């Protein structure tokens, strides 16, 4: 039935397909020989793009001077959870720098790429820099927002992204919960009540933190934006100086965006030494200075003291103290049927 020429074509197509397979596999040759350039991939979340551009350039220079080999650090940015899933699904990250420890935990739980105790391998919970959750209000603070309580007032419209899709929003949510819980002497029922009143004032739930910022800043929606301090600094920087101001609440959460080595990937690629050195670099004075420059709170006391005038003092609690860590909080608050879902479903029934 088939003509000879058709058979030849089929054979040609098949051989083409087969020859492509080893070519694809050949890319991941292990071991970088001396003098060959090393390439690292840092898979990160959205607002760290500028920070890592600076850090990478500075570290690559240092590395080249010391080892004489060229070091290229590639960056990938996106939503924290999405980035973690990409790594689990095979994105060749040497290091990950994400918005919350829960996403890195999953590299162990779902991908077996790192050991379970990854967060103990580097100082300060593997978070070389921190941030916190603050408010951004319109210039002059027309609604007189001073603290978390003010967000519950009638007529105050609050913008915060959807904690189901945004890692940053989960920090916002926990910051409010932690404040309310502390105020009520540790009563979670009171905290739930507080949160439910707060979210009655939230008209829109953007899918990501930058989306929420756009809604507040460009669309003119809302009286208060709940945001990461580093994002708030960007918003009230040169562009928004005359439009917005930052209000620091009395109590907030210590946001710890962690970093980790992806063991399985660096061992296969032979890049462990460079990746580890890069992570250590984040803790050096130079790395800490750059973090402060990009509005993240440095961990090093020396650098923190130098920039103390920039970062207002807030009473900060950690997620481990109040919520027993990320896995616990994720399950209790953000997974299906968690406290966040409960805010919406019964109300509609």
């Amino acid at each position: 039935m088939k003509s000879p020429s058709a058979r030849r074509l089929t054979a040609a197509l098949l051989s083409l397909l087969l020859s492509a397979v080893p070519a694809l596999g050949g890319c991941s040759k292990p071991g970088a020989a001396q003098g060959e350039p090393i390439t690292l991939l840092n898979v990160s979340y959205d607002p760290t793009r500028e920070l890592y551009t600076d850090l990478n350039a500075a570290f690559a220079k240092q590395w080249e001077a010391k080892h004489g080999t060229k070091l290229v650090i590639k960056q990938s940015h996106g939503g924290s959870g999405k980035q973690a899933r990409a790594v689990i699904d095979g994105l060749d990250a040497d290091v990950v720098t994400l918005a919350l420890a829960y996403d890195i935990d999953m590299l162990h739980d779902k991908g077996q790429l790192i050991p379970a105790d990854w967060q103990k391998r580097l100082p300060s919970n593997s978070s070389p820099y921190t941030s916190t959750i603050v408010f951004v209000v319109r210039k002059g603070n027309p609604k007189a927002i001073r603290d978390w309580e003010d967000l519950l007032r009638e007529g105050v419209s609050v913008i915060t992204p959807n904690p189901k899709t945004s890692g940053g929003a989960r920090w916002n949510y926990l910051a409010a919960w932690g404040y309310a819980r502390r105020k009520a002497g540790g009563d979670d029922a009171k905290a739930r009540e507080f949160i439910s009143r707060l979210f009655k004032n939230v008209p829109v739930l953007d899918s990501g933190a930058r989306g929420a910022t756009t809604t507040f800043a460009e669309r003119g929606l809302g009286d208060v934006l709940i945001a990461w301090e580093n994002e708030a600094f960007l918003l009230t920087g040169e562009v928004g100086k005359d439009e917005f101001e930052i209000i620091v609440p009395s109590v907030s959460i210590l946001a710890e965006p962690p970093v980790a080595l992806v063991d399985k990937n660096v061992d296969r690629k032979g890049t462990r030494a460079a990746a580890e050195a890069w992570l250590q670099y984040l803790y050096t004075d130079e790395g800490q200075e750059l973090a402060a420059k990009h509005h993240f709170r440095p961990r090093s006391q020396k650098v923190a003291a130098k920039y103390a005038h920039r970062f207002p003092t807030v009473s900060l609690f950690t997620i481990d103290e109040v919520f027993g860590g990320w896995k616990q909080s994720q399950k209790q608050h953000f997974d299906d049927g968690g406290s966040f879902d409960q805010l919406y479903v019964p109300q509609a029934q």
Partner: protein
Amino acid sequence: MHSSARRRVLPGFGLTLGLSWLYLGLIVLLPLSGLFLKTFSLSWAQFWDTVAAPRVLAAYRLSFGAALAAALLNAVFGLLVAWVLVRYRFPGKALVDALVDLPFALPTAVAGLTLTTLYSRNGWYGQHLEALGFQVAFTPVGIVIALTFIGLPFVVRTVQPVLEDIDADVEEAAATLGATPWQVFTRVLFPSVMPALLSGFTLAFARAIGEYGSVVFISGNMPMKTEIAPLLIITRLEQYDYAGATAIAGVMLAVSFAMLLAVNLLQRWTHRRFETRPGTG
């Protein structure tokens, strides 16, 4: 004689059919079967709890409803645009023709952001609409607008070539036989355009059901109100619940497939009806 009757007139049937199956298998069936396979890691009760939750049902209603509304809008106005482009000459026609494809070329996120900028309360349209008491951005209406935007080219581009193929002679013949313009439209033009219009409608509808990028910006994502089904899939993934995500997606896929199949059958039927009419009547 016998063997030649079985032989097809066009050569290469075996090879092309084989390659088509291979291609469809690799590009469509393999990923989709992966999706269903993942769903099977759930027990029946877990599956049902996932897809029948009130919030998920609300999202299905919104996604399918808004997609239907958008596809219907596009069917009406897309037909109009195609008609104008085929039947009239006017300055700037090439420009209008090119404009139709723009929604295809624009990244959906850009489309979503642009529409939100226009329709939010300080946007060009939004400020006037809000003065009249209409809120578009962050409501289901906004979702329909985004879906209409991305679906427009489908209807225009499927109807256009068919309209081009209809000779003006046919209409003139109908007119000389005493048909009113309305009769010419309903009895002559519409039946020939109907199958293509249905295709365009179906494509626009199918595209809109799964749309995520342009909608999340304008929808506001409020649970039970403006939360579309693809967003719920993303939220499942955010909690690393792959099976739950594929369960929601699987139901969407099954419903979409059933609808597409029904429209395809309907289309064949209308086509046949039109084709056989000259013989029977």
